[in-house]
């Protein structure tokens, strides 16, 4: 399997703090990878680095064989990496449908078009489809501010899905979602992904989610990967149990 994402000696230093420490990592095409780790173990910083939100202090990021280190989020996104956020980044004043349509317009590079309507049929159908698949069909016309936390999470994912990425990064898709909904949420997301076998990396605190959905797991601690392997192996790993799961 060819690697879709290759990280070489990736390091990010905020003043004194080493947020990411000489990270070396490969994600293979089609994988579903779960990242675990305590707060401040560098998980989110890792996503921010890959998507160009912050620049690495040292190291290179190669995506589909191309060096994308130092590209802006816009450029990274247009190259096929999409991400969702731990606290959803949405256009709060607009409806779920409009949010999705804007994402589609962004993908189509139509942001400058001041003439054709945004709500053109093709796009509306596509947006409706993705919203349905994520179970947001019946709240499509509600403004974001009136959505539930879970709904926002899903919409945030929807915005990344319509970009048709080849690599999807999700930051704690189920955090803030009630315990009974969390599997439901993940099921919807991954079902939505099924047709297009998108390589997926998601950060997760919830071990049940990891066990159930990840093929491979990475354990972060102190800005480095302390364990990498199948989920069972990771969860069995004493170091991980000690440092990440707090010896549960």
């Amino acid at each position, binding site marked *: 399997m060819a690697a879709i994402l290759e990280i070489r000696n990736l390091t990010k230093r905020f003043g004194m703090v080493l947020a990411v420490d000489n990270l070396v990592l490969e994600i293979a095409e089609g994988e579903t990878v779960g990242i675990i780790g305590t707060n401040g173990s560098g998980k989110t910083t890792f996503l921010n680095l890959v998507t160009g939100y912050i620049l690495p202090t040292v190291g290179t990021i190669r995506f589909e064989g191309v060096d994308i280190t130092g590209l802006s989020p816009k450029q990274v*996104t247009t190259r096929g990496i999409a991400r969702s956020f731990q606290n959803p980044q*949405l256009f709060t*004043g607009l409806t779920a449908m409009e949010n999705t349509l804007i994402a589609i317009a962004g993908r189509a590079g139509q942001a400058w078009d*001041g*003439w*054709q*309507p945004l709500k053109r049929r093709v796009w509306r159908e596509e947006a409706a489809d993705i919203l349905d698949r994520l179970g947001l069909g019946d709240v499509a016309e509600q403004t974001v501010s009136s959505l539930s936390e879970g709904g926002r999470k899903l919409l945030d994912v929807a*915005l990344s899905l319509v970009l048709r990425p080849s690599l999807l990064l999700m930051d704690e898709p189920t955090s803030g979602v009630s315990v009974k909904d969390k599997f439901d949420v993940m099921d919807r997301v991954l079902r939505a992904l099924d047709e297009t076998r998108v390589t997926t990396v998601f950060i997760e605190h919830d071990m049940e989610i990891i066990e159930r959905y990840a093929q491979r797991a990475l354990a972060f601690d102190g800005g480095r990967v302390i364990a990498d392997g199948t989920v069972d192996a990771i969860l069995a790993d004493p170091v991980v149990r000690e440092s990440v799961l707090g010896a549960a």
Partner: protein
Amino acid sequence: MMAGGAGTPRLGIVAIGVLILLIFVAIPLFFSQWVVFLVTIALAKAMVVLGVVLLLRGGLISFGHGLYFAAGGYAVGFAMRFLQVQDLVLLVALAMIAGTVMAALLGLLLRRYRGIFFAMLSLAVSMILYTLLLKFYSLTGGTDGMSIHAFTVFGVRPAAGTTRQVLYYAVFALSLGVLYLGHRFAASPLGYFMKALRDNEIRIEYVGASIAQPIYFSYVFSGALGGLGGGLSALSVGQISPEAAYWTTSGDFVFVAIFGGAQSIFAPFLGSVVFEFVKNYSVKFSPDAWQMTLGAVLLLIIFFLPDGLWSFKDAASRLWARWRRS
């Protein structure tokens, strides 16, 4: 009629639309000439205000839109004085082009700015133009400005006494055109990206779009509207002077934008017409304290109708809905 206006009954809207249309068509026949003139000016200025509103939706306060207002006006003035251009259509086109070109240039710079910095830079630019207009005395007539004399329409000079009506209907027709453009704009990706921009810039980059691009194109469009409005109001006033670029003029446009409301593209037109009447009548009924009256009105709007006069429309449609249900 605006995108998203679904839910309010279609028929009602058509009826109201036609009604308003009829009223505007009939104004010159019913009302005294000064009202016709006042509405002409109001509509011309409303175009500029619409430009300001489209930027406001993106959270961009242009405190220098007088610049484009002046650009349009002086385009007409220069064209008449130095190129002997007489025809309304040509003059209006020139005014709009002047606004567009200036916006296309300044936009390259201003697109990098947000919020208060955008406001201040646009203010600075407009004040520079103001000073230049006043300095190049031999060319611009300085503070006395340039007088803009009679015009022709497709080469035909309007019969004596009908000039005002001709101008009124021209401005009214153009307003309809501008409304259509504005409607297309508001419903287009560009329009939505401006709203989105105000909500969350970061996400815009994460859907693979640039932030500067929507700002730039909106700014150019808004500049074009400014030029158009400036040209038309210069034609109806018959005079253009540097005060058009002065910061208080720009302040008035923002004033009216909030006064009318930024919700709908119709709001600036409503706001502008009402504002002109308020201004004239406060001068009429409180000649010694008309500024105070204006200030008070603005405060009332800000505190009790934060969405401007347009809030009344929502109230109305709510009532209409209730009436239909009963």
